[in-house]
């Protein structure tokens, strides 16, 4: 997809809207549905990977140092990772998007 989604005209569409590029759903930004984002605290993380296993969107990735982070392009903010993170660790906190952006400004 060379054009951004809001630039595609009706003339750009393939016959019957057929998708000819395999896997192009990865270009679909589901992250903008999010109202909360997961914040990962490395100091509490035990690298158990439960968040990675339970993420229904498959958007949690392991970094080179073995910790985990959510790809915010796709993360819908469901909070399952924070819920599944073992109670003893509690390494993931869900933060309201609005609150997070406000904090950033300060």
């Amino acid at each position: 997809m060379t054009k951004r989604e809001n630039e595609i005209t009706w003339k750009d569409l393939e016959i019957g809207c057929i998708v000819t590029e395999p896997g192009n759903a990865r270009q679909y930004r589901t992250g903008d549905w999010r109202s909360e984002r997961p914040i990962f605290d490395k100091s509490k993380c035990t690298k158990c990977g439960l968040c990675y296993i339970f993420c229904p969107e498959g958007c949690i990735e392991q970094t080179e140092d073995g910790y985990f982070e959510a790809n915010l392009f796709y993360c819908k903010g469901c909070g399952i990772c924070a819920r599944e993170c073992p109670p003893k660790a509690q390494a993931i906190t869900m933060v309201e998007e609005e609150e997070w952006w406000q904090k950033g400004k300060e």
Partner: protein
Amino acid sequence: MVAKREGIEVSRAIAIACKLANVDVVAAYPITPQTHIVEDLAELVADGELDAAFIPVESEHSAMSACLGAAAVGARTFTATAGQGLELMHEVVYVASSMQLPIVMAVTNRALSAPISIWGDHSDVMAVRDTGWIQIFVENGQQTVDNVLCAFRIAEDRRVLLPVMVHLDGFHLTHVIEPISFPEQSEVDQFLPPNQYPLPLDPDKPVAMGDFGPPYIYTETKKAQEVNLEAAKKVILECWKEFGGLFGRYYSPVEGYQCEGAKVLLLTMGSFSETAMEAIDKMRKEGKKVGLLRLRLWRPFPFEEVRQAVKDAEVLIVLDRALSFGYGGPVCSEIKSALYNEAKKPKVVSFIGGLGGRDISPGGFEQIINRGIEISQTGSEQEFEMFGVRE
């Protein structure tokens, strides 16, 4: 060349047309008055006379779903249904056109329940009016065979790629035996090249079909669909012209009968026109300037041809074989709307008749025309009149 004509039931003739078109897949569920079409096709396949897959599905919803899959791999695909069957198929009917899958469907027009009626009218047609299919009406057996062949050609044309319905009246056409001239196999092969769907499902070249369309793109998909359907008209006209050149039978979106100098026009769709012609002939002999218009192309709607055909008439009487409850005659409402902005237009009078298989005789059409002329002069308190209804 004048081919020999054969006396045959119109339903059976459709099966033969499909055989001549060398269809690859037939998925259908039997329903009166369509049954003989699929029975014959099943037999042709079972006897090895037609090399096709016949899929005996469990419902019309499944029939059209199977047709989607067949057309998606590039198979030449045919189905047929009627009335309640078309209703059960309804949601998938939209999918076929929106996915641009060239399926041909014979609809043997039947009234809708309740009360249960297996007989013909256009209620089922009107319920699928907005589904985005090309829709062609035929009036007799020969036109049915001709237009089934044309339907494959139009549907599969690279510039169209849309499904086509051929509408024929249940019983009045499906169950009558008519003299029909079939083209030779070699002529059909010449007229109808192999189906080459440009983006078929193919494991070596994967594509995804029928994906979802979020708000940012859905409007564009519908615009593309509309432009495509409107553009199909050019190809339909081309196809009919070429067919006429090859076989000597020409078709047009709106066809006239005794329209020269006609001040009063009657407009019909489907097989009733042939009975109406008798009334027109009689009235013409009596010196009355009446003519008949037959609307052949229902979708895409032929605005220009309709306007052109009625421009010199003073009265236009439209007979609908369906009722849009709380409104009136669906064909008439579209005709009125097509003429509304014209500076010169006839008075339009709406009749509804022939519901649930009730006949209208030549004498009946004469009454409709005379009553229509009367209403055009005196006006009427009703938006439409139901012909022949017992008060």
